[in-house]
């Protein structure tokens, strides 16, 4: 039944987008569209939840459309159900948020038709059960989001972002297409059953793995295939950015899990080596680039790259354990990865909602122009703070739980036989720890610069709190972050049907552990209890505060800033975002980035202002994409001469080819 519901949701969403085409000429049209999308997403959410909750068996259904002979097949199994749940949860929240946010959109016609289509595409990817429908849905998702990225097409950089995005997306799709071609074989068994049944040989399997890693990885934002992500995600409207970062990257991860764990059978250990190294590098580089950004939404996009890296670390560990038959450990790693998928979908949506609120309140994405918003946007500020704490993996919020589980999985890694893994896993652990700490720094910067301090521009000074829908969406997500943080047990159990299928084992029942703590392996080994921690913190904090206020004084006086006795009224004296990032830029700048610092200091007596300009470039551009683009242009330049030959020369070409072919015939025996 739920599979049908899912398909009906897709159909409904497509219908809504058609309606969006018609409606979009009216300014109010965003209300019905987003409201309808909200309802449909809730339905899909309920269906997915029902399937997981009841532990239903996989259900398939086929339609006589799509690839001739194969037809379109759809299947809902625990994995699909989980990702369907994540997708529709994100979709519902984004739609709710957009009910308020949508009114800021200048040209509704460029958003309303594509938003539901985008949701439909993501739902369809998860449901697809044959290569063709999978790729169609996958590319449809990219295409609709491309249109959304270009919704504000008058900014040249958005157009560029859209171009890079679509190009990378298509390269990824073609990589997946090649992978499927190898899996389906020369006579084309494109259904996933057929692919499961056919076991490719070791070489082919390795090739498929690499292709899928690059295909799904480019969509998820693995370094160095991530370059499109920080361009495209910020360019879209904020509720779409939330979907792209929070959900679409997860769809990419779904594709990876589906093909590598499900279709490809038992992984080989060296695959995990590659996945782990890429994941670790992605986690650290992502957060480092995030630290360097001044654009709030771009910072969030780069932090998405980081979290994708964390998830891939979990998946890589799962592969390593699975390859060596350590099923319980594999289950732990898989759980960690999937839990982080869920968590990241939550808090990244929250953060993008917050960023959207900031943008709609101030019209500024550049943090250096913000500040002091905690006074102007009190509710948004609270929600955003919770998001920041959650993504920085701070207890008792949900981000910490998944990272904690990942650490636990890493600590089991000593049991692995292969030396390569034994060297890789501790390194990855170190990278993971580093990325976690840097993430905290990154989000202290983000929050401190944007929301704290004194407003750095008139826009920030006169900002006002956003509408109720947006706020309610943010509050709901914030609560979910808290709930997932203090009661992870039920969620972990919820994941077990999914994990069971691929790891071959499941973690022990968590929900009814004493004091609702989570004990992944054994209570003697490790356990964590968010609820108690929260309890302790609240009691300790509140008790202390009360005691101090009661027994000591509660007198408070407002006065000017002291600032060591040299207070300066100009807000420019505050620490700026780039100056906050400076120490870390110094530490890593030489090795990781190509940092250009240009100082223009006026000579003594000159009255003009001094200038200090920092340019941080993503080395991926320098190392990979720049050369490739230059090569393509050079090739086209040199070939282009053929456009300007004389007829006689063209005839000569024909003649030469003819003679060549005749020689071939003459030589043919």
């Amino acid at each position, binding site marked *: 039944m739920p599979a049908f519901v899912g398909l009906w949701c897709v159909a409904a969403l497509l219908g809504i987008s058609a309606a969006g085409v018609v409606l979009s000429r009216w300014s109010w049209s965003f209300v019905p569209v987003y409201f309808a999308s909200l309802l449909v997403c809730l339905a899909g959410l309920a269906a997915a939840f029902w399937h997981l909750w009841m532990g239903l068996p996989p259900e398939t259904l086929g339609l006589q459309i799509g690839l001739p002979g194969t037809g379109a097949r759809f299947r809902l199994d625990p994995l699909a159900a989980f990702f369907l749940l994540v997708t529709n949860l994100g979709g519902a929240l984004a739609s709710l948020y957009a009910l308020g946010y949508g009114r800021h959109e200048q040209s509704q016609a460029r958003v309303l038709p594509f938003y539901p289509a985008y949701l439909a595409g993501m739902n369809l990817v998860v449901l697809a059960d044959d290569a063709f429908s999978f790729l169609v849905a996958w590319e449809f998702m990219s295409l609709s989001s491309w249109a959304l990225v270009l919704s504000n097409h008058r900014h040249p950089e958005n157009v560029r972002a859209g171009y890079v995005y679509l190009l990378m997306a298509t390269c990824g799709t073609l990589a997946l297409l090649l992978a499927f071609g190898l899996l389906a074989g020369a006579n084309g068994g494109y259904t996933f059953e057929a692919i499961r049944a056919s076991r490719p040989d070791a070489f082919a399997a390795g090739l498929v793995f690499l292709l899928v890693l690059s295909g799904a990885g480019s969509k998820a934002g693995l370094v160095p295939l991530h370059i499109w992500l920080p361009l495209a995600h910020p360019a879209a409207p904020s509720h779409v950015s939330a979907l792209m970062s929070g959900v679409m990257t997860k769809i990419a991860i779904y594709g990876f899990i589906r093909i590598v764990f499900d279709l490809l059978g038992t992984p080989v250990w060296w695959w995990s080596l590659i996945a782990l190294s890429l994941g670790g590098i992605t986690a650290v580089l992502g957060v480092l680039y995030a630290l360097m950004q001044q654009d709030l939404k771009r910072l969030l996009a780069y932090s998405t790259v980081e979290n994708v890296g964390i998830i891939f670390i979990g998946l890589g560990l799962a592969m390593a354990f699975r390859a060596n038959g350590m099923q319980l450990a594999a289950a732990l790693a898989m759980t960690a990865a999937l839990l982080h998928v869920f968590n990241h979908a939550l808090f990244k949506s929250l953060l993008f909602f917050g960023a959207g609120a900031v943008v709609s309140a101030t019209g500024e994405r550049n943090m250096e122009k913000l500040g*002091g918003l*905690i006074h102007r946007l009190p509710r948004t500020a609270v929600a955003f*703070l919770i998001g920041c*704490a959650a993504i920085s993996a*701070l*207890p008792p919020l949900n981000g*910490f739980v998944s990272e*904690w589980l990942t650490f*636990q999985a890493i600590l089991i*890694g*000593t049991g692995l036989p292969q*030396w390569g893994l034994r*060297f890789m896993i*501790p390194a990855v*652990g*170190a990278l993971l*720890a*580093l990325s*976690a*700490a840097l993430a*905290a*720094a990154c989000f*202290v*910067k983000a929050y*401190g610069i944007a929301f*704290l*301090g004194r407003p750095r521009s008139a826009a920030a000074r006169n900002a006002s709190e956003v509408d109720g829908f947006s706020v309610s969406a943010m509050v709901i997500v914030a609560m979910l972050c808290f709930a997932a943080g203090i009661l992870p047990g039920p969620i972990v159990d919820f994941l077990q049907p999914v994990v069971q299928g691929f790891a071959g084992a499941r973690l022990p029942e968590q929900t009814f552990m004493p004091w609702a*703590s989570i004990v992944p392996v054994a209570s*003697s*080994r*490790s*356990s*964590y209890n968010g609820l108690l*921690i929260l309890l*302790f*913190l*609240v009691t*300790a*904090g509140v008790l*202390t505060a009360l005691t*101090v206020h009661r027994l000591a*004084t509660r*007198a*408070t*006086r*407002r*006065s*000017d*800033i*002291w*600032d*060591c006795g040299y*207070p300066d009224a100009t807000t420019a004296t*505050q*620490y700026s975002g780039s*100056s906050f990032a400076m*120490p*870390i830029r*110094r*530490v890593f700048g030489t090795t990781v980035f190509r940092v250009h610092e240009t100082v223009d200091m006026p000579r003594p007596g000159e009255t003009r202002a001094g200038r200090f300009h920092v340019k941080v470039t993503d080395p991926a551009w320098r190392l990979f994409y720049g050369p490739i683009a230059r090569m393509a242009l050079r090739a086209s330049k040199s070939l282009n001469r053929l456009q300007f030959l004389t007829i006689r020369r063209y005839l000569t070409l024909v003649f030469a080819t003819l003679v060549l072919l005749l020689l071939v015939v003459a030589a043919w025996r």
Partner: protein
Amino acid sequence: MAVTPAMTMIFELAAQAGQMLLVLAIAPLVLGVTRKIKARLLRRAGPPTWQPYIDLWKLLHKEAVLAHNASWLYRVAPYLLFATTWVGAALVPTYAINLMFSWSADLIAIVALLATGRFALALAGMDAGTAFGGIGSSREMMIASLAEPAMLLVVFSVALIAGTTQLSSVASIFITGSIGLRVSLGLALLAFVFVAIAENARIPVDNPATHLELTMVHEAMVLEYSGRHLAMIEAAAALKLVLYFSLFACLFVPFGMATADMNVDTVLTGLMTYLAKVLVLATLLPIGETAVAKMRVFRYPIFLGGAFAAGALAVFLLFVSRSF
């Protein structure tokens, strides 16, 4: 007499609460001891050992002065910092292992708890919108971003030896002495010391006694604070020191702790040994501090990188073979 479950429950609660209060009680004293000893080493009389108690008392009774644009975060942060540090300190086994709630957070969680406190304080430092606050927060986070991974690597190496991240279990394994002396443990110890120095803002990374100096980190962050809020922050700092001391004691010299059978004399011995250990550490710290000079800010990465390297090496050795 027969011990009913209810009574044991009460006993355990009492034990846990006792530890909580213990750390809170001795924290200023430890700080005082270190200051006193440092003063003596510098040939000064120095303030009395209980001076920190007096300072806290004084601060608590002063009115708190807030900047006009200080937000609620600014006022909540000190309590949050205090709470996290206190809970963290209370969850580290001091005189006895297997206390009631010791399992509720393992070592990783405790490290993360400290990170939560730091997060709050760094934000608070940026709330007033001053240059000093910004410097402090930025440098604090930079140091943390290097110290925390190092600390986690220490945790890894210990956990890999003990096969658990649960402090009580670690202690109960190490206490038997079956582990013996390990290269990796030595490296972990080294890294731990470095991290502890950095985290507690001691020389050579930071100077708790300094002010109005562009090299200060922690003090710059809390520059705007006054009254009870400052008291909370000071108390938290003291608690953090105790936390690291007892962590050191629990991980590297767990001997003398009261194990499974808890009766009066085991508890007493545990208590005595714990206090002795803390005292020793509180003497060693200022000696070390007076021996070295404070570093430039951009030397920290090398210092902490050393810690990181040591921890990483320990973990590598353990991954390669369990016998290191």
